[in-house]
């Protein structure tokens, strides 16, 4: 480094943090919501780091020798081959070092090599994760719209016919096991009635849409291939509904009681006393506070919805990450298991982040405190 450049560098280094702090202070004062958002995102990133550590440790605690699971019977008997295999996969190094190697790989998008598919885990995930995201995303969307909608109707028509019907339906949705429902739906709608397309994401004769997001419905719509879109949506709707039913039932019940609770609040009576139209009172005064407990439950329910994908994918032959996870876990394909664990953990994080941010969007007392 040249001697002339050193002082200027020092000055810059000394000034930057101060001015940055000042800017941050101003941003915080003018945009309390931005500060709230930044805080939540930083927390989420730290948690993501934690997830890499936890998945790594858990995966290494699993009893069983990956070498034994991946080498043939004959090779296992030869210590030299086993040692070579372990060295190839970095398993001879101490655990902390293995973690750092793993972490730096993850940060570069390298999740290691799947011992089963003999492909980079990242490639496998890129293939299977979008299918699961499409299925789970559709189920989440359906359960939000229907669950909240039904709950509001049930509350507004309390103790009338619609409320009774919805009570029975939601109880059914909550108590029926997802795998049973999946089997019955597949049997009835596809095999017997033949009104839904069969397994997979798209009709067998059709070429998938050009890859943009990996979600077939979205990609087909982006490309304007409406026949492909119709086929993809048709394949999606039954498994997504099956997956969503539990959450629909849960959200219906929670939304109903939350809306009823808010309807009894003083501020709703005060809003009525102002002579506002019913629809303004419902959407602005009632629904908003009622959504707070609903969002909490929804965030938790989406977690169990994600684990439900494993079964639904198996029954509808949906080529998603659930099946990949199952195969990797049973064959002790550690890089693949860690990759899946990381993806699932990050999805949970994102759901939690969205829930947290929604609290702030809905309730000023959260974001201004």
């Amino acid at each position, binding site marked *: 480094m040249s001697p002339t450049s050193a002082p200027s560098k020092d000055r810059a280094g000394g000034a930057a943090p101060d001015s940055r702090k000042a800017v941050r202070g101003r941003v915080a004062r003018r945009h309390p919501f931005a500060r709230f958002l930044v805080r939540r995102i930083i927390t989420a990133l730290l948690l993501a780091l934690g997830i890499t550590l936890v998945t790594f440790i858990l995966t290494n605690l699993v009893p069983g020798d990956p070498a034994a699971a991946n080498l043939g019977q004959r090779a296992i008997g030869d210590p030299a081959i086993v040692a070579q295999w372990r060295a190839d996969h970095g398993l001879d190094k101490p655990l902390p070092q293995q973690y750092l190697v793993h972490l730096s790989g993850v940060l570069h998008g390298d999740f290691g090599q799947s011992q089963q598919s003999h492909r980079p885990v990242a490639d496998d995930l890129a293939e299977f994760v979008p299918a699961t995201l499409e299925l789970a995303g559709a189920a989440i969307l359906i359960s939000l719209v229907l669950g909240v909608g039904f709950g509001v109707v049930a509350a507004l028509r309390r103790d009338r016919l619609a409320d009774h019907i919805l009570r029975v339906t939601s109880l059914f949705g909550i108590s029926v096991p997802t795998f049973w429902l999946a089997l019955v739906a597949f049997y009835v709608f596809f095999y017997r009635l033949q009104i839904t397309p069969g397994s997979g994401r798209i009709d067998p004769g059709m070429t998938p849409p050009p890859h943009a997001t990996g979600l077939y419905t979205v990609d087909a719509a982006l490309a304007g291939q409406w026949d492909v879109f119709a086929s993809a949506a048709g394949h999606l709707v039954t498994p997504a509904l099956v997956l969503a039913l539990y959450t629909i039932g849960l959200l219906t019940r929670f939304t109903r009681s939350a809306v009823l609770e808010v309807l009894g*609040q*003083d*501020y709703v*009576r*005060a*809003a*009525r*006393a*102002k*002579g*506002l*139209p019913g629809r*303004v009172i419902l959407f*602005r*005064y009632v629904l*908003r*506070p009622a959504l707070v407990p609903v969002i909490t439950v929804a965030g938790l329910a989406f977690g169990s919805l994600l684990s439900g994908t494993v079964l639904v994918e198996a029954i509808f032959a949906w080529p998603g990450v659930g099946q990949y996870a199952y195969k990797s876990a049973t064959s002790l394909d550690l890089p693949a298991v860690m990759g899946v664990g990381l993806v699932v953990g990050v999805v949970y994080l994102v759901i939690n982040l969205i829930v947290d941010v929604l609290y702030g969007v*809905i*309730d*000023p*007392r959260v974001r*201004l405190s």
Partner: protein
Amino acid sequence: MSERHETAAGNGVLAIEGLTVAIGGKEILRGVDLTLEPGRVHGLAGESGSGKTMTGLAVLGLLPHGARVSGRIALAGRDLLSLPPKQLNAVRGAEVAMVFQDPATSLHPMLTVGRQLTEHMRHHLRLSRGEARERAIDLMRKVRIPGPEEAIGRYPHQFSGGMRQRIAIAVALACAPKVLIADEPTTALDVTVQAGILRLLRGLCDDLGLAVLLVTHDLGVMSAVADEVSVMKDGLMVETGPRGQVLVEPRHAYTRALLESLPENAGNAAAATAGAEPSEGEPA
């Protein structure tokens, strides 16, 4: 009944006659008569559960579900009890407004003060966004909220209890109603800010010619601001008349009992409330 009451009843802006309310077979109001006049504060006292709040809610058609109502509530020639829902909704907030007991729960916690002030103005008076905002700032000034331009962007939890009740009063006044029903507007507040709220109500009543029904179980509050006083017991009006008469020479045994049950007698309480300095601020 006094002469003054008789003459006033003729030109009352709101006249309640023989109002009965029953919920689930239980008679809550049993023939209530009450007349409100412009520019006058009518105090309504009575022990808790006597039906004061129900009387106020009946005027706005906001009784609990399943309530059966009969009688007459006349507002400028119309009977509110037989008005179709849509027309009744046009009366609420626009001609008759209500201030509730606890401003901590009667203002929506998730909407800005400005929105809660302007929403019904825009609906009833068909104001533009800008006009409504101007008017909201005026109202905030009228109820003496400091820094009204900035205050309308804030949320209720950012104000003190007394300030919140002032805001609730501003919300009630936004559409220039003729009748204001204030249901125990100071009960939930610190003693130090009660006098300020009462003075504000009294001033608004005088300046705007509002007819005010001031519900309270505090006879001290009553004697400080009310022109007329009614006393309720078990869903019935047991006494009505000018303040001086009812509070000083009560005719009904129940009113006497109520007066005697005050920790200090009513005269002292009245002096204490009325004596608070008008310029006295309240903790922010």
